[in-house]
């Protein structure tokens, strides 16, 4: 869904993703924002889990980067948006990368596809040598 003019973006926070401890911090920050924005426990859990998967990808595959967390308000709708960016090697084959069970790193291959299922909105921009940028949003 393209960002409409009516959506306001607030409380932007930028967090580095350089170490495994940073992944924990991303989870905690996502949880805090989700609670502050009135997300239900299930919605919090889904979003935090998606954030954990993408933060780990940013570290493991993108060689580190950052995430911008922001609160969205669209009339009565409230949401949370996370944008993960890295300057890593990028993703060669996006379709493959989004397939369940496909992994180039020895994982389960559920990170990207799972994070997409756990989000209401998901966009990915990546090209070899140009890094990766993934946006997810979840509305409560």
């Amino acid at each position, binding site marked *: 869904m393209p960002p409409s003019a009516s959506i306001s973006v607030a409380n932007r926070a930028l967090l580095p993703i350089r170490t495994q401890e940073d992944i*924990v911090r991303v*989870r*905690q920050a996502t949880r805090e924002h989700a609670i502050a924005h009135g997300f239900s426990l299930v919605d*919090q859990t889904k979003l935090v*889990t998606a954030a*954990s998967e993408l933060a780990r990808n940013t570290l493991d595959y993108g060689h580190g980067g950052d995430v911008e967390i922001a609160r969205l308000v669209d009339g009565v709708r409230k949401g949370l948006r996370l944008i993960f960016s890295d300057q890593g090697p990028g993703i060669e084959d996006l379709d493959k990368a989004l397939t369940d069970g496909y992994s180039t790193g020895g*994982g*389960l291959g559920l990170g990207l596809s799972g994070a997409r*299922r*756990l989000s209401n909105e998901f966009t990915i921009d990546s090209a070899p040598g140009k890094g990766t940028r993934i946006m997810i949003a979840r509305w409560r």
Partner: protein
Amino acid sequence: MDRIPILKMGPFLLVTIQVDMHDQLAMQLQDDLTSRIVAVRARGVLIDISSLEIVDSFIGRMISNIAGMARVLDAETVVVGMQPAVAITLVELGLSLEGVRTALNVDKGMLLLQRSLEDPEAEQ
């Protein structure tokens, strides 16, 4: 470096995960548990995850790995206390924790382990 404590209760090992684990800590637990199973000849492992607020694919893989390694070492693994929101998310994420036995709480998990010790055939 910090570690998740592993308690011995008779022939079983009990692990209660109470912190938001970073990945290395999870790997460390996997190694520690495997060593302890052999060292004390444990017949069962009970992992209490009731304090865990999320289980992502990394933690899920760790749990599956522990269950698999324990089985090879002749020990049963039971995971107990998963929060409902975590269970809902886990399934949507695409993780089924195949081969991992679960129980609602520590008591029921202990019963399950004791029963499999008394009558291994019944568990198949």
